[in-house]
């Protein structure tokens, strides 16, 4: 079903060569505003712009997780250990959303709006289905942060991203525990994911659309570097 639209360009469009006019047209569509656009005019600001993209990219993932876990807590099908774990998952992701929005607003960037997510029909019908989806989402969160980390210019944002990534890693372990996966922590080198891999993984929740980072700022060369850098996280 295709009932959802995102009011920003898709990730695939980012890789297209753009004229300056196209660039700003898309920016306006993305609602990034004049402040963000003017930042693009100076070379010094480009690092900042990348960081804004990455933070918005992360924010979208956190929105997705936060919404799913909030619904899971409200579903009434969780109990015992699973309820406690998922309540914390919901709380953590909501705090990550707030932290990332604060981060973006503190530099006069516009946080992306929460998209309308779609979940599989049976996602919330049982504890098992909730945990299955959690086990799918959490490694994507880890991989996205690990993949993006080498692209982040600001040490503060990098530190924050690492902090949040680590928590997503803990979530993987807690969900493993509930699912009876032993050992619970079983990766010496948790994997980074490429931008494409993350986008593909979350596309089903966006009605089949690719994940937006909130602005059309990547040239083909940048896209290449991004994916290359993402892959470097694979050990």
């Amino acid at each position: 079903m295709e009932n959802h639209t995102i009011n920003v360009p898709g990730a695939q469009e980012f890789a297209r060569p753009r004229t300056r006019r196209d660039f700003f047209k898309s920016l306006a569509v993305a609602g990034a505003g004049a402040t963000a656009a003017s930042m693009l005019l100076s070379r010094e600001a480009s690092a900042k712009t990348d960081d804004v993209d990455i933070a918005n990219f992360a924010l979208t993932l956190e929105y997705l997780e936060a919404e799913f876990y909030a619904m899971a807590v409200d579903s009434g099908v969780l109990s015992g250990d699973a309820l406690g774990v998922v309540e914390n998952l919901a709380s953590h992701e909501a705090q990550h959303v707030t932290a990332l929005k604060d981060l973006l607003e503190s530099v006069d960037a516009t946080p992306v709006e929460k998209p309308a997510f779609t979940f599989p029909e049976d996602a919330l019908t049982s504890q098992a289905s909730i945990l299955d989806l959690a086990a799918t989402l959490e490694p994507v969160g880890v991989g996205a942060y690990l993949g993006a980390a080498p692209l982040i210019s600001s040490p503060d944002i990098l530190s924050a991203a690492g902090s949040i990534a680590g928590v997503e890693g803990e979530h993987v372990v807690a969900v493993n525990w509930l699912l009876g996966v032993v050992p619970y922590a079983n990766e010496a080198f948790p994997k980074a994911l490429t931008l494409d891999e993350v986008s593909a993984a979350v596309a089903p929740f966006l009605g089949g659309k690719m994940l937006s980072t909130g602005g059309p700022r990547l040239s083909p060369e940048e896209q290449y570097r991004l994916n290359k850098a993402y892959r470097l996280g694979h050990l």
Partner: protein
Amino acid sequence: MSEVESRIPLGIDREVSRRNFLKTAAWTGAAFSAMGIGGFGVAVRRAEAQSEYKTYEGLGDAAILQFAYQLELLEGTFYAEGVKAGIFKDAFLEQIVAIRDHEMAHADAIATTLGDLGADVPATPQFTFPNGAFSDAAAFLQLAATFEPVGIGAYQGAAPALESKDILAAAISIHNAECQHRCAINILNLVNPPNNLAFEEALPLEDVQAAVKPFGITG
């Protein structure tokens, strides 16, 4: 005092680590702005950004890795002794074995990278553990619960100070493994729910040094 001074051979796949840990890449030349972005520090205080990384600045990647190498050896040795002590079985044992293997894989990968950088791999310190650390599972797990946040804090603190993007990518992955260990140790300690932190915490260098000094790391 129980003392341990030898690396435990674990049959780690050295070639895989060597090949992948530090690939030469176009990224090596990429400029890494240490200047950062004004205003972010305040906003992300809740995310533990703060300024811990500044205490690692100026050390250089090799010195940071040399320190990290010793931390990994300390952890790896600790978990190896825990396995040898015979105080765990079943799922508990499987988890402790896995963490041991992870820490040793980290040490091995870091040693390889130090070699690639032309830097010395530090001699294995003479580690010292508290009396009774390996006499029962509870004592061991209590110590484990104090180790993991030190490793987490060290990597998280040092990451923004790393100059090489390749090393950063590796360090942030290792950091994630340490966070996963923290949660796993919580599970073994019957902390429920075990995922009880919304933000991992960075530690300044001096705090990490102070934490590991009693165990024999003086670097």
